């Protein structure tokens, strides 16, 4: 397997010295170029799992291997896209996209050329000189996407990337990410709590349950692309996911009674 997550648990020590288990023995195997959605209510550890794959944090027990190598630290091969974009407000669009290229020690001219190419890919060529706060949320997320893609990572880790966008922009961005995923051949792990988003994007949807975070089920989405959000097949899968998802939420809310 390309990414193997083997019996990964993560516990945090709270202020009163007690341990909080956020992830409990998670097993997950991901193929190269697969589009995986991690779906679950807040507190199910999906963002924690993403951080572990990114290498921002290490598992308490278990291992995460990518292409055979154990993840111990962040790498430019796996870029995280954050919900609040993580753009540097003092740099304009093109300088933001060049950020990762600077670390790769490329010549200035080459950097500029690559940055322009990816800015064009996300459709922001008219906004190269703008600073992030001058752009809308959707545009800022495009900049973050261009910045991530410019360093040619093998894996994109997206942490509720469209969570702060309005519904229309959100759908538009979903189309975009699907197009880019097909064009650039990336492995994408995409955290969301939006069922429709997961059904639209994912090859497989990993449904997680909270306290402690576990993988409940994995649902395959065998629909051809580009998916029609209103087709019967789409709605059927959405319904199936909803039932599973709802079960896990109900269990969370009422389970303790």
């Amino acid at each position: 397997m390309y990414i193997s997550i083997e019996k990964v648990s993560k516990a945090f020590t709270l202020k009163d010295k007690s341990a909080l288990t956020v992830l409990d023995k998670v097993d997950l195997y991901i193929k190269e170029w697969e589009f995986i959605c991690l779906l679950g209510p807040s507190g199910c550890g999906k963002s924690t799992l993403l951080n572990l794959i990114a290498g921002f944090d290490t598992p308490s027990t278990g291992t995460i291997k990518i292409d055979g190598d154990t993840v111990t630290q962040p790498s430019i091969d796996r870029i995280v896209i954050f919900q609040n974009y993580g753009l540097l407000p003092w740099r304009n669009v093109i300088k933001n996209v060049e950020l990762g290229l600077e670390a790769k020690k490329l010549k200035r001219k080459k950097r500029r050329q690559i940055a322009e190419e990816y800015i064009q890919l996300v459709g922001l060529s008219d906004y190269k000189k703008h600073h992030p706060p001058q752009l809308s949320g959707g545009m800022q997320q495009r900049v973050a996407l261009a910045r991530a893609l410019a360093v040619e990572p093998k894996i994109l880790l997206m942490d509720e990337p469209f969570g702060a966008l309005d519904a229309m922009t959100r759908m538009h961005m979903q189309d975009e990410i699907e197009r880019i995923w097909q064009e650039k051949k990336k492995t994408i792990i995409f955290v969301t709590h939006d069922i429709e988003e997961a059904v639209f994007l994912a090859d497989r949807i990993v449904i997680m349950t909270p306290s402690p975070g576990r993988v409940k089920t994995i649902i395959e989405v065998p629909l051809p692309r580009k998916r029609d959000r209103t087709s019967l097949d789409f709605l059927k899968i959405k319904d199936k996911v909803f039932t599973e998802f709802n079960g896990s939420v109900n269990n969370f809310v009422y389970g303790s009674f």
Partner: protein
Amino acid sequence: MGKIVKVLKVISSLALFVAIWELIVLTGRYEPSLLPSPVKVLEGMGELVKDGTLITHFKVSLSRFITGYAMAVITGISLGLVLGYNKKVWEFVEPVVQLLRPVSPIAWFPFIVLWFGIGDVPAIIIIFIAGFFPTLLSTVSGVRKVDPVYLNVANNFGIRQPHLLFKIILPAAFPMIANGLHIALGTAWVFLVAGEMVGAQSGLGYLIIDSRNSLRSDLVLAGIIFIGISGLVLDRLIKLLEGYIERQWGVSDGRRN
């Protein structure tokens, strides 16, 4: 329209102030040396400008100010970056800083004279002390308040020290540092005059002491007004710089959503 009203307000405010002053002088029958009339002071100002005294003293003061302030800025920012980044070291140093900070720079004067003699240096040292603490403290807190997302992004793209400091931490903390520089400028200007009153043979502070010694209270007030005006001009200049930084950082210009 708004601008004209603003200017009118400033003019009428100043005119009213001068009118009350003149009224007090006219009705009070004070000794002219205790409270000179506005006209006398204006004449005194003219005298100082014409015979070149003002510009000579102003130049001396300004060069001391720039030297002391630049030293404060350079050491304050560099130490602040180091101390803000090393939490443990800062926790160790902070008590001493907090103890020294409320001490008026003038209190150091006996030692300053013992260590550095008289001339330009004591005034410069006093300006340095006055400007150093606000710069240091705002830099430390600016660095400590850097959004962790920026550090994660840098880490993800493989940006290591010293690039991390210059590309991420310094610019992220800069709006706060600029605010500290503004405060430091005001404080330093206040203590410039104080420093020149106790230890110098030239400068705007000395001009006041010298005028007192020759019983020219009109020149004392003229000196005070000049100090006020130049302090105000310096303050406006750094405000312009701050505004420029805010625009560059995209903090203040029109956001679109």
